[in-house]
């Protein structure tokens, strides 16, 4: 019987990987995929807790996360395409108009 700890640890590792990807990579597409990775790790945690507490709510939340993730990807990718059109780059370090 695999304990909850194992699943949570897997979730933690995946989340950290995703976070590291966001922090280190500069290609906007890869950063996006890293974000997906983080979302998935969270989903895993939700499912794990749903299993532990036998509460279906955890799984319902996953559904919502999926929805949001899908929307986010659609809008985010549209943004990336837009940026690429105007700047010919997907390096987010080149996009620093908000510098104070």
């Amino acid at each position, binding site marked *: *019987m*695999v*304990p*909850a*700890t194992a*699943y*949570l640890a*897997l*979730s*933690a*590792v*995946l*989340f*950290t*990987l*995703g976070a*590291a990807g966001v*922090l*280190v*990579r*500069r*290609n906007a*597409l*890869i950063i*996006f*995929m890293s974000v*997906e*990775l983080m979302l*998935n790790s969270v*989903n*895993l945690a939700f*499912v*794990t807790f749903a*299993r*532990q507490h036998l509460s*279906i*709510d955890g*799984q*319902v939340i*996953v*559904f919502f996360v*999926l*929805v*949001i*993730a*899908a*929307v986010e*990807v*659609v*809008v985010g*990718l*549209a943004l*990336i*395409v*837009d940026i*690429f*059109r105007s700047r010919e780059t*997907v*390096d987010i*370090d080149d996009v620093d108009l908000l510098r104070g």
Partner: protein
Amino acid sequence: MEWAVFLPAAALAVAGGIGVVAARQPVHSAIALLIVLASLAVTYLVLAAQFVAVLQVIIYAGAIVVLFLFVIMLLNVRSGEGPAVKLPRQAVAAAAVAAGYLAALLVAALGAARPFPAVPQGFGTAQAVGAALLAGYLLPFELAAVIMLVGIVAAVLLGRRPPAGGEGR
């Protein structure tokens, strides 16, 4: 028995995760992401979440990753990353923070070391999830639809080519 499924799936997932973050080409990252998603779907099955596992495959693997691939092909970018000149110490700092984060999360995970209870009949099926979704979460469910609509509108608007000569958006 569970271990036998979990361990390979977990190993694949971690490997895929490393692949997403470390691959030079976006295409490789996308493939690696697909691996992660698939192996997570497997673990969901073990966790008595059949419906979620199915969703995972259909939506994530089927829709989202494909979308990524489309964009990658559309833009046709290589890595897009030259040498890091703007934030030279970012990688080091990120590694340190991420390590701290992982440590904290793992400590927290260890605190949850309890065995799972037995799974009742019908837990995690499409029927169960659907019933919960349309009973207790009806309003959020509908709002999710609205959000998707907004997302679609936004994507269409952003994707439109600027009218020639106009001041644009």
